[in-house]
C-alpha cells in the first residue's frame, strides 16, 4: 500500500519510494526516508492534496506524489 491508501488518523512506516529524479529528492528532503512514521491527517475538500504529519511537521502531498511512497500500515 502507499501513503494515498491511508485513512485519517492511520499511521504507516515508509518502506520505499518508487520514483526517481527531482520528485524522489523532494520526498527524501521532506523526511520520507525508509523507517519514517507518517500519519495521515485529512484530505482537502476536493480530496487532493492530503495532509500528513511527517517528522513533526504537517506536509500536504499531492496524490501523484503520495502514490509513490510505499508504506506498511501499523495503526
Amino acid at each position, binding site marked *: 500500500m502507499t501513503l494515498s491508501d491511508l485513512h485519517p488518523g492511520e499511521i504507516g512506516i515508509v518502506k520505499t519510494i518508487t520514483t526517481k*529524479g*527531482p520528485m524522489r*529528492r*523532494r520526498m527524501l*528532503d*521532506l*523526511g520520507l526516508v525508509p523507517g519514517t512514521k507518517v500519519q495521515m491527517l485529512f484530505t482537502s475538500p476536493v480530496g487532493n492534496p492530503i495532509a500528513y504529519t*511527517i*517528522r*513533526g*511537521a504537517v506536509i500536504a502531498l499531492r496524490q501523484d506524489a503520495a502514490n509513490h511512497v510505499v508504506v506498511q500500515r501499523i495503526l
Partner: protein
Amino acid sequence: MSRSYVVALGGNPNTGKSTIFNTLTGLKQHTGNWPGKTVVQAKGYYHYNGKTFELVDLPGTYSLLANSPEEQIARDFICFANPTATVIVVDATCLERNLNLVLQVSEITSQVIVCLNLMDEARRLNLRLDLPLLEQQLGIPVIPTTATTGEGMAELKDAIARIAMGQLRPKPTPLIYEPFLEEQIKALLPSLSRIPANINKRWIALRLLDGDSSILKEVEVHLNEQ
C-alpha cells in the same frame, strides 16, 4: 572605509529566520507565512566590534538540491557568492527535520553556524537538547536562540565575527560516500580544474553525478563573470 563581511542566513521555512534577520539588522523586513515569501534576497546591515556585516536573507528551504527557484537561489548564493559565514536557522523543536539542510550546507562550506532557534518553544515542550554533543557530532558551532526575546543574539553575532576573523574555524564532519561513488568523484575532479578555488569542486562533482545539469549552467555564468 572598512570592508563589510557578507553573511548568508538560511533555514527551513517557519524557523523564525526572518525574525532573526530583523533582530540582527533592525530592519522591518516583512514576515509572513506563505510559500516562497522570501524569494527575492533581502539584505540588511549591522555593526559589531567595529566591523560591518551584510546579512543576506535566503529563501526558506528544506533542501538545496530539489531545484525549485527558492532552492536554486539559496544554493547559488552559498556556493558561488562566497559568504564569509552561513548561518542556518534551525527549529529546536523539530531538529531531525532541520538537520537535513544543515548537512547539505556544511557539504558546500565549512564557514557555517547552526542557530538553534525557538528555544523558548523547546523548553515549553520540555525538550532537553544536548548542545555539546550536537556540536561535536556536526563539527559546527551551535548557538541556542529565541529571536523574539533576543536570547542568544549577542552570542550569535560573536560567533559570526569570530568566523570572519578566522578565530573560529568549524570543521563539519565530512560525508564520505560509498567507494564506487568516491571513485567517480575522484575521476571527475581533474575536469573541473578551471573552476575557481573558492568553489567547492567536490560538491560540484557530486551534483553532476546526481544528474543536476542546472549547476553546470551556474558554473558557466560564474566563469564568465570572472
